């Protein structure tokens, strides 16, 4: 499901443009399946930019059975990944295990593996080191936040990261404002 992006900006047009930038950046970083909600608060007169991102944690998961739903089809199995972020590693591993002719990418999240039962796929490890989504979330924020706002405060919670960016030292009231922002369920 596509991420929900909401903007609260004192500059309406600028806010709309930043929503577009955020949406494109989520797509570019292949975070479509990981990012659930993004809320951006912009106060151009201060200037202040707060970005709160709610995402699905994927730390520690690197087995295909944990990362996807695997269903049995007529000629083999269909792997439906939970996050687009795993697509590259999953394809690479499946190609090297079963060969290119048996593995086919059927969509952004789907892979078809012919002649293989779901049981055989569940325990396949697609990478040695687990991906930490928060690293990519951090990259997303760096791409979206205006470059001039170089003073940053980052707060990381379970499945949620909050970025406060400004040109002046970050004030406590801005941090409180950021904490109080609703980013949706």
């Amino acid at each position: 499901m596509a991420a929900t992006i909401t903007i609260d900006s004192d500059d309406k047009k600028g806010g709309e443009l930043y929503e577009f930038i955020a949406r494109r950046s989520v797509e570019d970083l292949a975070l479509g399946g990981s990012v659930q909600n993004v809320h951006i608060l912009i106060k151009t007169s201060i200037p202040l930019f707060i970005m709160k991102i709610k995402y699905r944690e994927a730390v520690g998961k690197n087995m295909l059975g944990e990362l996807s739903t695997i269903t049995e089809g007529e000629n083999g199995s269909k792997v439906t990944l939970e996050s687009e972020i795993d697509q590259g590693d999953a394809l690479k591993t499946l190609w090297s295990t079963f060969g290119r002719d048996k593995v086919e990418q059927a969509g952004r999240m789907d892979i078809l593996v012919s002649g293989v039962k779901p049981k055989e796929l569940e325990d396949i490890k697609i990478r040695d080191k687990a991906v930490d989504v928060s690293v990519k979330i951090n990259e997303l924020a760096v791409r979206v936040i205006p470059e001039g706002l170089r003073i940053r405060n980052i707060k990381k919670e379970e499945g949620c990261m909050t970025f406060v960016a400004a040109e002046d030292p970050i004030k406590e009231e801005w941090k409180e404002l950021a904490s109080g922002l609703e980013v949706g369920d």
Partner: protein
Amino acid sequence: MLKYLIFEGGLYKHERLEEFLQDVGGFVVQKVVLSLDLIINLAIPEEEVKRLEALSAELKGKLKEAPLIGTEVAVVAPTLSRHHLPHPSCDVAENLRRHGAKTNIIGLARGVGQKIVHRSEQERELIEEHDLAVFTLGNFEHCLREAKPPLFKDLSIPVVVTGGPDCGSLPGAQGYVGGIGRYPERARTGDMIDRLNAVSELSGRVIEDRRRELDLDPLTIDPIIVKEEVERQIPESVEALSPNPVTLKFDGVRIKLPYQEFHGKVEGVTVEGLRLGDVAMVKRSLMRDYIVVKVLPKSRFE
């Protein structure tokens, strides 16, 4: 007065066009051959345009007006980071080139923010080596109006600004085009292309106004003649590997040869019986180590 046009057609019989230009006192500013296609940026006396149109129709080519021919435009981004490059700046620069300009992209060191925004003296000099500056700025109107004018308001060349909001005009800029702020992908939609065309058309109008002003105090020698003579008398200038090695500018030329080695030769070029060093300033460019020739107006010698 010279009229600047782009001819797009085939290679077949194009020599007729070049001969015609020579006969009527016109000039080839730039010639690009792409397989069997040909694009010529040219300048021709205004009264000969009708005859050129007839010849162009005969050669099955297309002619379009391009006042930006013979101008070097600086496309200035607030920084060199991925926030502002490549998309908006490169799109604007490409569109300007399609309209005949020679463009250089400049990224400022600290052109971002509202309080830290800053432009150094060296950056100002580098931008002023050009004939026109197009600043590609961001998306917030408050920031554009309140914080960005110091980047361009004291420049001695005309300035066109692009930004996200449609805010009409900006203090210190000759023109403003909205809808081209910070964006993270290539401009592909018809609406975006129209806006890019609007930047080039506005830049063309600004340059035409400047040319009209220049007619009131004309240059000692037309820069286009300087270009031809430099190319003829200094063969190394044509052989330089840089694109457009002798770039025609509004009031001179940029020669893409090392200053130390060649400035003496450039000063010694004879144009219409005058030594170039006597009627023009030959100085070292801040861009690499190129040579910038700025022809002086006639009024300087009266």
